[in-house]
């Protein structure tokens, strides 16, 4: 007994189409079929002009973030069957559309680069040339935040980031927290200065969409609040 599902896909080539079109594709449901594999099926057998991003097909590369049935998620790890008979597939919200489901990520990467996304180590490494020591407990503090795959599901679900194009946004701030919380990082003051600016943590209204949508279950808002707290105490103590 075969069951079919309708994929309703956002189509747009900005060079040609003034407005987006939604196109329907019937697809046969097979056991274990993911949204991504269904898209590949459409691309290879039905409509070769379809554009989308994917690579690892195992939820680690962060390419395939899309807006599926009204929520941001990774197409590759999402089973098609539970999504219902008609599945709406759109690009990540509020980023410029390059073509169909592929969005222009420039703004997203800009924010990432703004938070100095690298370990800042002022002191030279140990004279032995060996590793910096880090206790098991200290390592645990960054457990959740190092899992970010930069898929932009969070950033494109945050209303503040939609409206305020300058706002650093949850992904960049989660990256910042990954370093702020790392016992080896010595960029503390510098990082908090960046966080304290008008486009920084204080534009976050604790909407929590980011945390809700993160496919890696990173408690992003928690990280942002931790940074706020540190900036706050820094200010109050006159350190900043």
């Amino acid at each position, binding site marked *: 007994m075969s069951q079919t599902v309708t994929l309703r896909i956002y189509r747009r080539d900005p060079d040609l189409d003034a407005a987006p079109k939604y196109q329907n594709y019937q697809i046969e449901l097979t056991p274990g079929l993911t949204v991504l594999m269904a898209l590949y099926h459409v691309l290879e057998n039905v409509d070769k002009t379809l554009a989308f991003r994917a690579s690892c097909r195992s939820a680690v590369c962060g390419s395939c973030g899309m807006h599926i049935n*009204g929520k941001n998620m990774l197409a590759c790890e999402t089973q098609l069957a539970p999504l219902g008979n008609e599945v709406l597939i759109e690009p*990540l919200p509020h980023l410029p*559309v*390059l073509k169909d489901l592929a969005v222009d990520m420039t703004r997203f990467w800009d924010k990432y680069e703004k938070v100095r996304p690298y370990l800042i180590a002022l002191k030279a490494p140990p004279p032995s040339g060996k590793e910096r020591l880090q206790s098991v407990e200290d390592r645990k503090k960054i457990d959740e935040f190092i899992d970010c795959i930069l898929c932009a599901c969070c950033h494109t*679900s945050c209303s503040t980031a939609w409206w305020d194009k300058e706002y650093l946004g949850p992904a960049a701030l989660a990256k910042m927290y990954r370093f702020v919380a790392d016992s080896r990082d010595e960029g503390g003051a510098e990082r908090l200065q960046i966080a304290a600016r008008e486009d920084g943590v204080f534009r976050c209204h604790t*909407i929590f*969409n980011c945390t809700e949508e993160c496919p890696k279950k990173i408690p992003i808002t*928690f990280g942002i*609040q931790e940074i706020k707290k540190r900036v706050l105490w820094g200010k109050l103590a006159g350190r900043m």
Partner: protein
Amino acid sequence: MPLTKHTVYPGRGLGMWAFWLHRLTGLAIAVYLLMHILVISTVVGGAGNFNEAMKFLKAPIFILLEMGLLAIILIHGFNGARIVLFDLGYGVKKQKPIFIALMALAIIPFVIAFAVALPHIFV
């Protein structure tokens, strides 16, 4: 280049609804506040004008509206407490239950005020 358009993120995150409630109630109270100051301050103009205005506002419908305003203030105030809590670093990972609990708590003062106001609505 074109964007997809959303005003409200279509997901159903409770946190987002809390945000929208807070923002809309905040703006509503802000508008009310600015009017309220103007209206009440006409008291300096003497009894005549003021009582004239207040008589108008004594109609039951205004008392009902007043109750609505109270509800709005309670929602904003109690959720505001939630936000301040988060800003101090408490409860961020339990945002949903905390929201539900505070909203439940806000019902209590509302019910009491409503009971007090009830006789005035049906005069």
